């Protein structure tokens, strides 16, 4: 009796356990600004079993992909909160010059006029330079206008321009806080189609209902696999008993 079935079922169970972890992460981030849900997917790998049957049974590896669909906008009333409409990203840069892509537009202004996120990384303009608002004593906060193209102004006075960047080719590596690292840290191209919506934040695109349904499916699948595994175990026991009698 070959162990293909056991191996396949064990793989299926570990796959489902990983999927449950991904669902848990989505549910934990149901309110995280700019969060994109992560979806588990099976990646066929060429290694594994020698026989064709074995390959079909269990040669999958666990992978996650990002669902980039937009989250809904939630108005906050804060002039320095922005949401992006379209596929683009904002670029932030930390002190050591590392750049990250993000759709989390909860901006703050530092006393010296730099636009930063919650961990103090600076937002960048279309040329990739940190944005610095010229803050004189007269900057009326409530009158800061951020236009759909990302330009920041008070009345007729232009204060700066937010860079809107396209999603680069390849895989973005998540680093938390709704930030992603571009492949090879390349600077992405500009995204002319992306629009900025001021005084809004983009909600997480996690839909609790979908995740719950997913979770039930995962649990049922896990139960079924574990039962089949127990059934196989029983078969073996009976086989051994039959041989001994």
């Amino acid at each position, binding site marked *: 009796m070959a162990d293909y079935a056991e191996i396949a079922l064990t793989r299926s169970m570990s796959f489902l356990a990983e999927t449950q972890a991904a669902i*848990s992460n989505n549910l934990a*981030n149901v309110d995280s600004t700019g969060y994109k849900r992560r979806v588990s997917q099976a990646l066929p*790998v060429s290694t594994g079993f020698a026989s064709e049957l074995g390959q079909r049974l269990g040669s999958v590896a666990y992978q996650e992909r990002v669902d980039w669909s937009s989250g809904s906008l939630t108005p906050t009333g804060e002039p320095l909160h922005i949401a992006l409409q379209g596929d683009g990203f904002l670029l932030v840069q930390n002190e050591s010059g590392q750049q990250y892509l993000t759709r989390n537009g909860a901006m703050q202004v530092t006393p010296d006029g730099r636009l930063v996120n919650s961990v103090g990384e600076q937002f960048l303009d279309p040329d990739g330079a940190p944005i610095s608002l010229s803050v004189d004593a007269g*900057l009326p906060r409530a009158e800061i206008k951020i236009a759909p193209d990302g330009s920041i102004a008070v009345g007729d006075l232009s204060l700066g321009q937010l860079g809107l960047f396209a999603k680069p080719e390849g895989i973005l590596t998540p680093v938390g806080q709704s930030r992603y690292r571009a492949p090879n840290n390349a600077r992405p191209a500009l995204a002319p189609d992306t629009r900025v919506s001021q005084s809004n934040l983009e909600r997480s695109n996690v839909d609790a209902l979908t995740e719950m349904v997913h979770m039930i499916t995962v649990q049922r699948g896990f139960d079924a696999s574990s039962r089949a595994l127990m059934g196989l175990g029983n078969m073996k026991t009976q086989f051994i008993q039959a041989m001994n009698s």
Partner: protein
Amino acid sequence: MLKSLYTTATGMKAQQTMVDTIANNIANVNTAGFKRSQVTFEDLLYLTVQAPGLRVDASGSYSPIGLQIGSGSRVSGTTKIYTPGVLEGSANNLDVAIEGDGFFQVLLPDGSVGFTRDGQFSINADGRLVTSTGYVLTPEVTLTPDVAELSIDQEGRVTISTQGNPTPTQVAQLQLAKFINPAGLLSAGGNIVTETAASGAPIVGQPGANGLGTLKQGFIERSNVEIVNELVSLIVAQRAYEVNSRAIQTSDQMLSTATSIVR
């Protein structure tokens, strides 16, 4: 599986903070000059199980995507939202509301300066203008006991007439302070915020000048808490808490299913 238990626990903790913040907002719905707080969440760091583009087997195939597993969410901050509250008329001529940006400055017991938008002033035993908590307004405004009429104009000029002298004379000038990043102010309780490195130094000036708001005598600024919005947020937070707790239950059941294979 244990990972998913901890992951969802971070979600529940984050939602708990959300409920706490909403509760504080609702409790202050009638606090003059109160600004509501908003919680923002962010996803936590990812555990890189496999980096993208690595060789996965001897035949030289590469993993087209990497595997990073998330570890939940955290509260990234509570932001005070400085939108104006509704101005409500009051019969007291020492009630002053700020229309636009700015804070009144008060002297705190430790000698430092605090900032408030609550302009419900009264006169203490020394004739000085104080907030409802008793903090002295700075720069100080001292009034004599024989004041008959008192008016405070938009630019903060305090003009009085006395029983002996009916001609209005200016006796004081109120000042306002503003911050480049009011979200960085520290809430010190008692409707007072204090300066921090994140808020920057106060920019002090006459009301109406340099982008500072103007004053409105005989008005109180209500809190900017909208009870309906808060209740909706409360329901959302409760449901999010619920789905996270369901995820813990499911993970737990799966764990128990797995252990039941071994008898």
